């Protein structure tokens, strides 16, 4: 190549790069009727009944409507049904099952105008079909408890049906977990239940409008990266403002922030977005350009104590642990006061919260007194020992890579060290921590993690002694602390079946008092989700509970 031809070649490359960069300046221009949301996960399936995953729940909430849901005020409301059935309005009637058990018959009516995206009405046939899918042992549905309890469905007409449950609980009219499937599309795919997981149209024919009955349908997707939603042509509710909603998956939160600043995305979802510390820092730097909403909700961060540990069996040691923790300082110093401390597993915003529940304030002197009473009198190099010469030492574990939790561990380590408790930090990847350490109770001292729940969610599986995981029950149940209290068992069982709210609230109060008294778990705080929205986006109301904000996406507008 001669010098002249080389110059010509370089010149051509320069022009190419210039054109490329010019063409690349796409982020500045944004059509007014589109919205791009950033989230951190991509769903493994779009089938609503297979696998529980927040990313799927978040996206499908824009394309589907459940029969009932908890709204932003944590009230149960009808979404696909006409009237919420209650015993008072006569649509729910307690009855006896054939075996003589107390059950209930609940009658729902689907909204007459409700139809799937292909124009086919949503009918009782879909209800019966979805129930059959859920009940079939080969279909791969995770939580079959609901379908087992729902033992019969009487179809009254195309839009009306009665559900018969073999158990009478106060949540009889909440059908949030009962996902409807379009019988006219999915029945063929369910002909072999064992293969349903792989044949479901939600994954093989995702863009079929008939799969969706919400304001949007899935119009395009790039596996692992992007999902594009477009208006459902047959949506029967209030018309949504945005013509297109694009959900972009960005696993790295720093890249997510950069995408927001560059206009690659318009907003970051609170449900699957930036961790609180990063959101707080973002707010300080860019808060004027964006609307940052911190919504504390039903994500309960706590430390499970393994009650089989001989030292932790002693209630005085457990109380000393909580008295030695300055949770208010942690909240104000690390979280800018956005995540107030928890006093029990019940959120103060929940209607069953007891205002007079005992509160453990920071009191290291009291902690030391309790430890001495428990026999931990001698100190060597600042660490306490008992008469047998045993060292007061625990291991705390959490998910490695979770900055907030790792930071809290370090603060707690120093606060507990100040009263003579030695703490070893041993963190594991979430895969190992949740896959084995917690679920098989392999942690010897403490395990820090969170539970997410819905309003007035009865903590039966985490506190009832029948739910302590072991090899005999196939490691099911979430009572990882090994807490056994017959009184607590009775209260839990009563709460579930108590229909009178006032009486139930009293039982909840008992539960919270016992929880605070026995301290099987150290409550930390209720996690706040950070919703980072553009200033022009109106009517996004975070729910702070399991039902995502996107269930009301038709209200969102410029």
């Amino acid at each position: 190549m001669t010098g002249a031809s080389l110059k010509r070649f370089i010149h051509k490359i320069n022009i190419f790069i210039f054109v490329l960069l010019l063409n690349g300046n796409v982020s500045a221009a944004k059509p007014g009727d589109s919205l791009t949301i950033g989230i951190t996960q991509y769903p493994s399936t779009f089938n609503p009944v297979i696998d529980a995953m927040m990313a799927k729940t978040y996206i499908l909430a824009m394309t589907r409507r459940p029969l009932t849901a908890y709204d932003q005020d944590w009230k149960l409301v009808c979404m696909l049904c006409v009237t919420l059935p209650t015993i008072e309005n006569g649509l729910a009637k307690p009855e006896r099952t054939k075996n003589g058990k107390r059950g209930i018959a609940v009658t729902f009516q689907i909204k007459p105008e409700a139809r799937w995206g292909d124009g086919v009405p949503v009918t009782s046939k879909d209800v019966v079909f979805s129930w059959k899918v859920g009940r079939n042992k080969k279909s791969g549905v995770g939580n079959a408890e609901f379908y087992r309890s729902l033992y019969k469905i009487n179809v009254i007409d195309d839009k009306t049906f009665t559900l018969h449950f073999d158990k009478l609980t106060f949540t009889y009219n909440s059908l949030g977990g009962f996902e409807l499937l379009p019988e006219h599309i999915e029945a063929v795919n369910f002909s072999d239940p064992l293969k349903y997981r792989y044949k479901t149209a939600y994954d093989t024919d995702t863009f079929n409008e008939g799969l969706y009955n919400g304001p949007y349908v899935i119009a395009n997707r790039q596996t692992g990266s992007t999902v594009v939603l477009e208006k459902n042509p047959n949506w029967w509710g209030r018309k949504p403002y945005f013509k297109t909603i694009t959900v972009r998956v960005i696993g790295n939160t720093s890249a997510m922030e950069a995408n927001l600043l560059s206009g690659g995305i318009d907003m970051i979802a609170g449900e699957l977005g930036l961790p609180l510390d990063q959101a707080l820092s973002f707010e300080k730097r860019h808060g004027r350009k964006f609307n940052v909403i911190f919504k504390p909700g039903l994500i309960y961060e706590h430390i499970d104590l393994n009650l089989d540990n001989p030292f932790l069996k002693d209630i005085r040691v457990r109380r000393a642990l909580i008295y030695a923790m300055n949770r208010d300082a942690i909240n104000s110093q690390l979280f800018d006061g956005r995540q107030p401390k928890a006093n029990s597993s019940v959120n103060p915003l929940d209607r069953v919260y007891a205002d007079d529940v005992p509160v453990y304030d920071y009191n290291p002197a009291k902690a030391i007194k309790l430890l001495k009473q428990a026999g931990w009198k001698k100190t060597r190099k600042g660490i306490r020992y008992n008469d047998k010469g045993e060292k007061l030492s625990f291991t705390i574990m959490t998910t490695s890579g979770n900055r907030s939790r790792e930071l809290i561990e370090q603060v707690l380590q120093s606060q507990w060290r100040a009263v003579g408790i030695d703490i070893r930090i041993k963190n594991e990847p979430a895969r190992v921590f949740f896959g084995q350490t917690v679920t098989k109770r392999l942690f010897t001292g403490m395990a820090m993690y969170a539970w997410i729940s819905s309003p007035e969610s009865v903590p039966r599986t985490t506190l009832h002694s029948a739910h302590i995981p072991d090899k005999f029950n196939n490691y099911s149940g979430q009572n990882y602390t090994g807490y056994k209290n017959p009184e607590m068992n009775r209260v839990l069982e009563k709460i579930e079946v108590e229909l009178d709210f006032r009486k139930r609230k009293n039982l909840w109060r008992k539960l919270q008092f016992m929880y605070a008294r026995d301290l099987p778990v150290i409550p930390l705080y209720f996690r706040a989700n950070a919703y980072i929205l553009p200033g022009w986006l109106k009517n996004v109301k975070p729910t702070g509970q399991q039902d995502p904000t996107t269930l009301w996406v038709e209200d969102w507008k410029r």
Partner: protein
Amino acid sequence: MIKFLFSRSIQGMVLLLIMSFVIYALIGLMPGDPIDLMISANPRISSEDAARLRALQGLDQPLMTRYLNWLTNAFSGDFGYSRLMAKPVFEALQPALMRTFQLMGVVFVLSLVIALPLGVLASRRPGSKTDYTINLLAFAGISIPPFWLAILLIILFSVTLGWLPAGGVPIGDGQGFLKTAQYFIMPVMALTLANIGGHTRYMRASMIETLKNDYIRTAKAKGVPEKKILLHHALRNALIPVVTIIALDFGNIFSGALITETVFSIPGMGKLIYDAIIGNDFNLALVALLFATVLTIAANFIADICYVALDSRISYGGQKQ
């Protein structure tokens, strides 16, 4: 040649078989299974549900039985379904494979096109200003973590200048070359800069070593021009160790770059393999890793052929002629 091809093919197949077992066993030995993860996320799953789901997914069988089942099916061409993506493994693999091939293929070619001449240039006068400058840049390339460079690039080109999309891949068909290229510029830059450093250093070291040989001194004494000595006599011999390194790198083209893919939200092979391992998706992880193994074996096989082409003293049997 035929004997060589035959023996290498047999070796490759045995290696693949061993690798398939090793990968399957390693994933299987990881604590917990998909149902354990499901239980931890959903407090309502009962022990009966857990047992039912394990049986449905074949997780109640011993690891060896599961592996042998998989192997039997694989021999009949059925590599199973991806548990995470709910589709046949190859269908799940294909888009990620194509994306990674596009990204890493460009990175591979670009880094060689830039690094090899730089290495040769640096080796001409070891210790000169040119050599120091190239070395400095090479060490910078090696030392700077690609994910950090990726964030810096995003801040510069997307946030500050607004020239390029901050990540992702174009959605829909028929986006055109220019549109697609925009999304790949920054990831290619981040990964190429990291690769250039290593390749430049290998090339430089190999060239310096070759330039010390007697035949080079003889060529110089005979008055052969420096350019001809470098490119004709030295480069050919110096390429032999570099070819080995390149062959080993070739497998990366299909196994992806996890962190860079995550930062730029490119759903490629790195992310897919990571998700498959974390999510206990045996079939997907196994096939993806075996695919990378096959390519590494193939690349090494090609490298062996290249040795013969580069150095006539080397024969297929490995003996000197």
